[in-house]
């Protein structure tokens, strides 16, 4: 073990700043980072300057590849590949660039705490949580093993990790994503650093978890400087005091959060904010117009009417219908085998040209629902109908022919495309299978037409997936799914691997394809705002059970189920006036394990309205208004609706 060192080396502050009362924790001046590549130096960051003050949070915003993370990694000597770094980076007046590795090791973890994006991958898999927490304490503060363990436990309690004593003995993979991010924050805070660097601390998490983590971080920013790297202005609005916008390695706009978010000067910032000048949010925030007005809603110009198909008035033959569908997976727990009920009693219909959104936290069965709807998983209970026919009863050839009418777009655009095939082969493959009579030139014509429709250039035909950007890959995925002109397109989190601007483009593309071809969409996402923009109706899933089903606008304006209310409250809104207050109100804790569901209503352990009735029996699925259904014993919405009438 390392020898005992003083925790923080005393550093004299520049007199002028100390006198002004504003202590600059981090001052970056003219920082440039360039990587040595095959063709000389490739700049990643150019001439970056900013400061972080004590008690203040600076949000650094930009698309991926803008150089946000590289700048901080370079400042701390953590870059993965050899790079040319120039400029000045001063932590409390001490220059960091050019410090030897040993000196940096006394700063990293002790005076600067870092939290990285992916909590799943950022903890060492073979070390127990308690040991990983104790490590920096022992090294930097010279604590003994016992003292470090005691302090680690306190830290875990401080980041409000439930059941902290037991978590100390667990391995990272035994914790959920949200819990691991709490552990990462606890480690970053362990030695009470002056500067906390948060690199996309919530982008791998659900809305509900994001809100909880942001809430927690807001508590810790008072005593220190915080640098928050993110692409999400909603996150900035809740936490940051100052904002710096980066594009292609340069700082393009800087100012207080209120200034930048309310009156962005740069067109690029407006684009990142999802506000084109033409579609500025109309109603002033906080006007009581409900959440719908706060979100930057950009509806397609001619939006198809909400379909006539609904549970209340079922069509004669909906394109896709699920009735009473249940799916369970066998899970090994120690010596026992147990069934995990991923879906239970799902009823839904998807009419012609309709877009049905499915939302919920991760693990709620959204993806399983898409697999069951496409009959890729055989449901344990209930029935799936495609255009009124049950795939279970169809002979193999017939089933395959009918499958062309139902296509899917997957979450990870790169991983879902065969890396060996060119774009041309990838898009043409469905034609080879389902329209073998088409000759090569006819196929090429179809493929080119489709590429044009999804906004991809012909020159990409010979590229392979790894030579494309994430957005281009997802367009190929959509082209591949749409080339057979299916009647139903199932989208399983098609946007979650994409940047904000790309996300908006792909969303617009889906809306357009739907309008042009009358395709029905089953759109699964944990991103509520894109569901709101695209979908006619929304189904809210909670742990594999239906919580609420309603027309999109009605649901976002006035959610009936308490879970929907909490979900909507957790959405980060890019408005610095109201977002901090919204954050402070987030109540939702961690969801229970799907293997140990509470008796009665599955949501009652997290529900602010739970009563003894909820523990006794599960609520029935009942109609709450026209076209609206929910399963809850305490439907406040019903009363509201009646008052409105």
């Amino acid at each position, binding site marked *: 073990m390392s020898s005992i060192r003083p925790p923080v080396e005393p550093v004299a502050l520049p007199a002028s700043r100390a006198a002004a009362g504003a202590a600059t924790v981090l001052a970056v001046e003219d920082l440039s980072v360039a990587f040595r590549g095959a063709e000389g130096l490739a700049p990643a960051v150019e001439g970056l300057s900013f400061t972080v003050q004590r008690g203040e949070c600076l949000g650094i915003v930009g698309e991926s590849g803008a150089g946000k993370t590289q700048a901080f990694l370079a400042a701390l000597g953590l870059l993965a590949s050899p790079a040319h770094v120039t400029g000045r980076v001063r932590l409390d007046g001490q220059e960091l660039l050019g410090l030897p590795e040993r000196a940096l090791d006394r700063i990293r973890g002790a005076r600067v705490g870092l939290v990285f994006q992916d909590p799943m991958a*950022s903890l060492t898999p073979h070390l127990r949580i308690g040991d990983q927490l104790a490590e920096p304490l022992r090294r930097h503060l010279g604590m003994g093993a016992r003292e470090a363990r005691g302090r680690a436990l306190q830290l875990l309690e401080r980041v409000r990790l439930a059941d902290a004593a037991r978590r100390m003995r667990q391995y990272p993979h035994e914790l959920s994503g949200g819990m691991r991010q709490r552990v990462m924050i606890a480690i970053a805070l362990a030695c009470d650093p002056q500067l906390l660097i948060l690199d996309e601390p919530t982008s791998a998490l659900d809305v509900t978890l994001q809100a909880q983590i942001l809430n927690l971080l807001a508590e810790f920013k008072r005593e220190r400087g915080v640098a928050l790297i993110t692409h999400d202005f909603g996150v900035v609005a809740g936490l940051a005091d100052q904002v710096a916008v980066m594009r292609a390695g340069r700082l393009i706009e800087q100012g207080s959060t209120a200034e930048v978010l309310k009156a962005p000067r740069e067109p690029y910032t407006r684009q990142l904010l999802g506000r084109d000048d033409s579609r500025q949010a109309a109603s002033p925030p906080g006007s009581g117009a409900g959440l719908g007005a706060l979100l930057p809603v950009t509806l397609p110009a001619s939006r198809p009417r909400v379909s006539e198909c609904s549970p209340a008035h079922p069509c004669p033959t909906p394109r896709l219908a699920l009735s009473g569908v249940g799916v369970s997976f066998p899970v090994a727990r120690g010596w026992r085998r147990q069934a995990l009920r991923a879906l239970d009693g799902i009823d839904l219909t998807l009419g012609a040209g309709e877009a049905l959104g499915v939302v919920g936290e991760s693990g709620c069965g959204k993806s399983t629902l898409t697999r069951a709807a496409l009959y890729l998983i055989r449901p344990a209970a209930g029935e799936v109908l495609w255009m009124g026919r049950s795939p279970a009863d169809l002979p193999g050839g017939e089933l395959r022919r009918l499958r062309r009418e139902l296509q899917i777009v997957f979450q990870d655009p790169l991983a879902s495309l065969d890396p060996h095939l060119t774009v041309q082969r990838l898009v043409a493959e469905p034609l080879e299978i389902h329209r073998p009579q088409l000759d090569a030139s006819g196929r090429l014509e179809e493929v080119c037409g489709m590429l044009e429709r999804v906004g991809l250039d012909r020159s990409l035909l010979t590229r392979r997936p790894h030579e494309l950007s994430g957005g281009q890959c997802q367009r190929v995925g959509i082209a591949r799914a749409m080339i057979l002109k299916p009647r139903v397109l199932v989208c399983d989190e098609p946007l979650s691997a994409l940047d904000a601007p790309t996300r908006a483009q792909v969303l617009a593309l889906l809306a357009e394809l739907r309008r042009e071809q009358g395709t029905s969409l089953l759109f699964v996402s944990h991103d509520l705002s894109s569901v709101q923009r695209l979908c006619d109706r929304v189904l809210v899933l909670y742990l594999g059970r239906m919580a609420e089903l309603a027309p999109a606008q009605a649901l976002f304006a006035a959610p009936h189920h308490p879970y929907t209310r909490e979900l909507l409250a957790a959405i980060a809104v890019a408005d610095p006036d109201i977002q901090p207050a919204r954050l402070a109100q987030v109540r939702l804790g961690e969801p229970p394990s799907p293997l140990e569901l509470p008796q009665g209503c599955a949501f009652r352990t997290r529900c602010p309205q739970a009563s003894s009735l909820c523990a006794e029996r599960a609520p029935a699925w009942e109609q709450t208004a026209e076209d609206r259904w929910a399963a809850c014993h305490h439907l406040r919405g019903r009363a509201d609706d009646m008052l409105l009438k």
Partner: protein
Amino acid sequence: MLGYAARRIAGIVPVLLILITVSFFVVRLAPGGPFDQARPLPPRTRAELEQLYGLNRPLIVQYWHYLQGLAHGDLGPSFKMHDDTVAGLIAQGLPVSLTLGSSALALALLIGVPLGLWAALGRGGALDHAVCAFAAVSLALPSFVTGPFLALAFGLWLHWLPVAGWQAGEPRYLILPAVTLALPVCASVARLMRGGMLDVIEASFVRSARARGLGRWRVLRHHALRPALVPVVSYLGPAVASLVTGSLVVETVFELPGTGRYLVQGALNRDYTLVMGMVLLYGTLTLLCNLAADLIHAWLDPRVRGEHA
């Protein structure tokens, strides 16, 4: 973990039974028998021999008798080396092969693991290139080339070590064969160690550990090393079994009285019981080594433990 190990050990028994059954019949179905020779035996002698070893009975009866023998730990007599039982032959040869194999294994690990680590840490540097070149050459050269070459160089020219032969308790006789046997294994270990380490040092949790200021060596030792060892362990499972049962080539080149030659000799001579004994030995060791590799893997990576439970 203990329960898992117990279940895996219990699982070895049926696998061995299948192995015995299949090899018993395959060996006997191959054309020719133990007493077919260039100059045929007189029919009377041959019949007597077959009677003696029970080869005139129906196959299924022979199989049953063999299993009964096995249950009592009896591997039967060798058909060719008439004075020896199979168990006796293995008992003579195995200590030699075990000594040789485990020295080669130790050598391969002691040299291969550090070489792989150094190469990975100095990626792209001179040492890295040297290690990669060494590994490529060692893997490409068969041991019937390296063995005689080493014997020539260190035995005949330099007179440092004996050219061949074996004397129990004399490590001088062990060195050249152990090096010959270890070379390709050492090369594989170095390459796998290098690859494993390169993957791990780019992992997010290693960057995270560095960001905590834990220091380069502590990050390597406590955070990176264990996951980087996984490919090496997976490779060693099956490799160890073939190392310790002996190598025909190395034992022939250096005239060592190990078990390596028995499998090939036995198969060529249709020495049914000897082949069966070697198959059984090799099978048991392979299964045990794989089990050990899986257990070590579970120790290296706690995520694996849940999957096996």
